[in-house]
């Protein structure tokens, strides 16, 4: 069996690229190049390594970044959706609602009046991306 560690290093670089460029359209060929893999092999091995597809990883990263902007800035919901890379407000709102359990506006109304929790931002980046156990995703319409 080939050494899996170099493969993980390449896959992680692709994941880091998503974390950096989450506001850009997802470019699977570019990610596959970063991972030194063919497109099909990249998609399969990414999911095996990280437990979710690159699309789903990106979607949840965008929602996590949106949560931060909704908590810490005065941007409108529309501005937030554009800032994290959504092309339409509708797809942003439905994804947010599905992953967070409430609408972006309701989330902002929760958090904006209170001081943000005293948790370092590097840890909210790493630990508050929505995942299966934070909120049970409704329905089966997620293509991720």
């Amino acid at each position, binding site marked *: 069996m080939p050494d899996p560690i170099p493969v*993980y*290093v390449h896959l992680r670089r692709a994941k*880091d690229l998503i974390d950096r460029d989450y506001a850009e359209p997802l470019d699977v060929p570019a990610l596959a190049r970063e991972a030194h893999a063919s497109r099909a092999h990249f998609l399969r091995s990414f999911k095996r390594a990280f437990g979710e597809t690159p699309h789903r990883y990106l979607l949840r990263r965008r929602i996590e970044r949106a949560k931060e902007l909704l908590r810490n800035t005065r941007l409108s919901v529309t501005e937030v959706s554009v800032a994290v890379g959504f092309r339409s407000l509708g797809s942003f709102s439905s994804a947010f609602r599905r992953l967070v359990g409430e609408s972006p506006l309701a989330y902002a109304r929760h958090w904006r009046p209170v001081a943000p929790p005293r948790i370092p931002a590097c840890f909210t980046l790493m630990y508050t991306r929505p995942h299966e156990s934070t909120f049970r995703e409704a329905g089966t319409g997620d293509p991720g």
Partner: protein
Amino acid sequence: MITGLSHTTIWVLDQDEALEFYTRKLGFEINTDATMDDFRWLTVSPPDRSDHELILLVPGPPMMDEESAEQVKALVAKGALGPGAFETDDCRATYAELSARGVDFLSEPTERFYGVEATFRDNSGNWFSMTERAELPVHQ
């Protein structure tokens, strides 16, 4: 009483490559580089801060069985581990300097309630915060 933390283990995939990264890219200094049998004790510190040593260690036997070592290496390579936070006197300038040397940043310098912070990875995959602390409020 305990007065501080002096050594932190950083699991790396290759000691030579880690040493190159920590000294050439981050600008750290070697504290100790000593080999006995096939065990290499390799520690580095930020310049003039030898009071806290980072131990650059490759997971492996006899400390860990081969299977456990492979698991830890996989976690490091996948980017799952974050050993801690570095301090800097100027986050933006250091970000520019380290980026130019090829350090992979995950986030750019950003104002936070505790200072200006950026995050980066070492060449093995460990993630770190790099923070320029804000003036701490005076507590009663």
